[in-house]
């Protein structure tokens, strides 16, 4: 009898010990929870929290310090410099302006596009594929494509010359507009997808109900469609505004020295000027602004997890 029991339950080797382990954690929810969230927690701490903390310490260190470990002399001079020298406040202001402009244009185009895909087309999946298609090409390569288009004697210039709008070669590279075009182009899919998700999730009967109750198309849009898709709108706005604010590749490639954004300045502090503590201070300022934006967005009804679908 005892022999039989042994044969049934006592599988030897690896599978046996795995089963023992599973038996052990069966009624230990805390251990199981730890096993599930442990690994991502380690990654998050190692690659996000620790670098952020170290940047924080660095921002309170005197210039020229490159030791990212805490323990150096404490100083506020980096922050004083950032908030007192008009050049940096200027850059922050211009970064804010271009972020707002980018976000407004992307939201307007993206929402219209998503609305058209949901309401007026049957080829939904094909159109969505076209929307995300640019993502399959590297960001830098897409920026170089725009350089090719916008530069003096580039594609745009040639077309305009052939059509007869301008005479001779013209160039739009290294202008505010070039950076704006680059941003809109890059972020458009990012905003269109959450807009699409919330619009597609919306109960179409609500639109019919509004019309049935005497609301014309514009009133229906303002009183039903817009409030019902507010969550997705805010999610899309956040998804565009945050990376734009911290961006440095697009302004560097398309704006050159004419459009300086805060990301370019920070990159320069670490790369060219070798003033890591000052770059760290600027980074902390940007982080605080971005977190404030995020909190504001979520507070006003945005839902980043659900991409606005509710």
């Amino acid at each position: 009898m005892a022999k039989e029991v042994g044969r049934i339950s006592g599988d030897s080797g690896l599978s046996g010990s795995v089963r023992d382990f599973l038996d052990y954690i069966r009624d230990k929810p805390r251990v199981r929870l730890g096993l599930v969230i442990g690994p991502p927690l380690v990654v998050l701490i190692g690659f996000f929290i620790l670098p952020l903390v170290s940047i924080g310490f660095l921002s309170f260190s005197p210039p020229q310090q490159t030791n990212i470990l805490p323990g150096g002399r404490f100083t506020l001079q980096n922050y004083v410099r950032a908030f007192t020298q008009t050049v940096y406040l200027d850059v922050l202001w211009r970064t804010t302006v271009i972020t707002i402009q980018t976000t407004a244009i992307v939201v307007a185009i993206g929402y219209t596009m998503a609305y058209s895909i949901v309401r007026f087309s049957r080829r939904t999946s094909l159109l969505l594929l076209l929307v995300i298609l640019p993502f399959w090409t590297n960001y830098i390569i897409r920026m170089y494509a725009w350089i090719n288009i916008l530069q003096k004697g580039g594609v745009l210039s040639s077309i305009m010359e052939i059509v007869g709008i301008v005479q001779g070669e013209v160039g739009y590279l290294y202008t505010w507009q070039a950076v704006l075009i680059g941003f809109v182009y890059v972020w458009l899919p990012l905003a269109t997808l959450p807009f699409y998700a919330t619009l597609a999730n919306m109960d179409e009967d609500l639109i019919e109900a509004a019309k049935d109750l005497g609301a014309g198309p514009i009133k229906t849009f303002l009183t039903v469609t817009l409030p019902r898709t507010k969550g997705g709108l805010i999610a899309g706005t956040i998804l565009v505004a945050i990376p734009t604010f911290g961006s440095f590749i697009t302004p560097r490639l398309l704006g050159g020295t004419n459009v300086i954004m805060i990301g370019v300045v920070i990159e320069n502090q670490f790369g060219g000027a070798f003033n890591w503590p000052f770059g760290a201070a600027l980074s902390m300022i940007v982080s605080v602004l971005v977190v404030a934006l995020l909190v504001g967005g979520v507070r006003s009804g945005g839902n980043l997890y659900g991409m606005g679908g509710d």
Partner: protein
Amino acid sequence: MSILELHDVTKTFGDLVAVEDASFEVSDGEFVSILGPSGSGKSTILRMIAGFETPTSGEIQIEGRNVVGVPPFERDVNMVFQSLALFPHLTVAENIAYGLKNRGVPKGEREDRIERMLEMVRLGGYGDRDPTELSGGEQQRVALARAVVNEPNIVLFDEPLASLDRKLRQHMQVELQRIQTETDITFLYVTHDQEVAMSVSDRMVLLNDGAIEQIGTAEELYKQPKSRFVADFIGDVNTVPGSVVARQNGQAIIELGDSRFPFDAGSIVDSGRDTLDVESVAVCVRPEGVRLSDTRGDSFALPGRVRNRIYRGDQVSYIVETDVGTLLANTTAAGFGVGDEVYTTWDQESTHVFASESEEAIEASGAGVGGA
């Protein structure tokens, strides 16, 4: 006075004919049901009246004015949607106010009317709630209030009660009738449920495959069905296949299995064809018209054996196996048992004979035998 008139309304979606030559009128203050199986085009008719679909041909008149081409927001009709379509981002009171605001009703009057409406649907004090926190029945009442508060010419219902359980549905039917009587607004109610249609409406429009089969009161449709479809759809019916084997003196001799019965030839319902040519017929009789007997009695009598006996309190249902098919009889005679050899008998008055509309064979079917 008729508030709504449909004249030869046809609606096609590509090759599919959803509604074909539908014509009917609804009087002011009437409660009319549009009844039919799913896919019969009843919702399409409703959506054309609301303005969400445009008829391919024909005319729809509301208060004598042709409304084809008029957008929904300019029509004086309101709809209660199957999904109810309450605005989740608005409170109950704001939902009900939506139509009034669009009509430019001033704030004071608006609040009065919402208050009165909430009382009428027995949701007094619910104005500030979110519709999402209400029960299914309460949401139905809000949807009803949102439509009725505008006092439109017609309130359209697209099977809003279908999702409720039976008890709540019956309760809401009574409520619907009460509110219709109180407000005297014309109600047009779409449903696939003949029980609902029979209990709430003054008249019914029965649809089959996009075409109107019959229009009339519940009693007319039940007692004088104009086609086998109507007899089948309204209430339970036993159908026995038969054939006309001879005619003399206005009488047709109908053969059911081995038995022959005379029947008034003029009473054979035939859609379009000359009754004299009719050979293949369907003999229909309601279960309550069938009696069980030890002897051949009435006009029709088929021998058979009792297969099932179901005691239902006020009556007993028997399922009887005969040579030509299974018949259901609902009678008060309780004295028969399973296995008894009996005659199922019924008289001419409770019999409907329909000429076979096509070459397809008529299949015998006992009313509700499957479900009994």
